[in-house]
C-alpha cells in the first residue's frame, strides 16, 4: 500500500479514539463500521496495537487476581442470623 493511502486509512480514526474505544472493542460492543475502522487501524498502527493488547492483559490480570476468597470476620453472627430466620414465628 502506498504511504499516502496508508496514512489515509490510519487517519480514518485517530489513535486517541482507538484508545478510548479499546475496551468496548475488546468486548465486542462496537458497531460494524467502527469495528472495521478499528481493525484496519490496529493492523497498521503499532502504538494502538500495543495499547489494546495491554488493556487486554490488564483485564486478564484483574480476573486472575480476583480469585480471592474472603470470609467476613463476623461469619458466625451471619450464620446465626441465617439459622434464626427459619425459627422466627
Amino acid at each position, binding site marked *: 500500500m502506498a504511504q499516502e493511502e496508508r496514512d489515509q486509512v490510519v487517519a480514518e480514526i485517530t*489513535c486517541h479514539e482507538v484508545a478510548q474505544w479499546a*475496551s*468496548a472493542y475488546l468486548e465486542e460492543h462496537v458497531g460494524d463500521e467502527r469495528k472495521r475502522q478499528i481493525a484496519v487501524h490496529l493492523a497498521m*498502527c503499532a502504538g494502538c496495537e500495543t495499547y489494546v493488547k495491554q488493556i487486554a492483559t490488564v483485564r486478564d490480570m*484483574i480476573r486472575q487476581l480476583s*480469585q480471592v476468597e474472603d*470470609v467476613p470476620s463476623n461469619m458466625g453472627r451471619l450464620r446465626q442470623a441465617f439459622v434464626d430466620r427459619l425459627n422466627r414465628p
Partner: protein
Amino acid sequence: MNVDASPLTKSARYRNSADRTAVSCQLPTEGKSDNVLLARLRQGDEGAFAELVTHHHSALIRMAMGHVANREVAEEVVQETWMAVITGLDRFEGRSSLRTWIFGILIHKAKDRGVREKRHVTFSSFEGASDEVGDPSRFHQSGKWVGHWALPPQPWDDQTPEKILASQQAVNAINRAIESLPGTLKNVLILRDVEGVEAKEACEILKITETNLYVRLHRARERVRQAVEVYLAGQQPAL
C-alpha cells in the same frame, strides 16, 4: 443441620503465584441454578449460605470501599447487606438474578452511607471530569497527526499476565490502583472484570447505559494499565 463448613476453614488471602493454578469455586448463581440455590437458601441450608457469602464477600467489600471512608465502615455495610439478604429471602421474587439483587442492595446501602459521610461531593465532582483516557499529552495536539500517538505505549514484550503477577510488587501496584479508583469506576471494574458479570446485568445493577458502562470500564482499566506501566518501567535496568 448441614455441618459442612469447609469453605470457611480457608482464610482470606490473595493467591500467590504458587497456587494460582487453583481456580475459585464457580458458584452457580445465574439462571436455573439460581432457583436451586434459592430453594436451598429458603430451606435454611447453611452450607449454601456460607458458599454464597464466601463467593461474593470480597467483591462486596471492595465495592463498598468505593463509597465509604474505610474498611471498617465497608465491613458494616456488607454486614447490613447480608442481613438484608437473609431477611429478604422470602420476599425475593426472582425478577432479577440473585447476584443482581445482592449487589443492588449493597450499592444502595454503600451510597446511602457514603452520602451520610458527606463523601458524595467527591463523586459528583468526578462525574464532571473529562473524558480523557490517560494522559492527553501522549497524543499529538495539533498538525497532520492530531489525535495520533506522540508517545506511544512501550510494548510489554513477553510479559504475560502470569509473568507480571508472579511479582508481589506488581500485584500490590495493581491492587493499589484498583483500591484508589473512584466509586463509579470501581463498581464497574469489580462487576465486569472481577466478578465476571455480563454487561447487561452490570448495567441493571448500576442503573446505567451500556455505553456508559464501557466508558467507565475503560477508564478504570486504563488507570490499572498505567500502574502496570509504571511498575514495569521501574523494572527496566538503567541504560
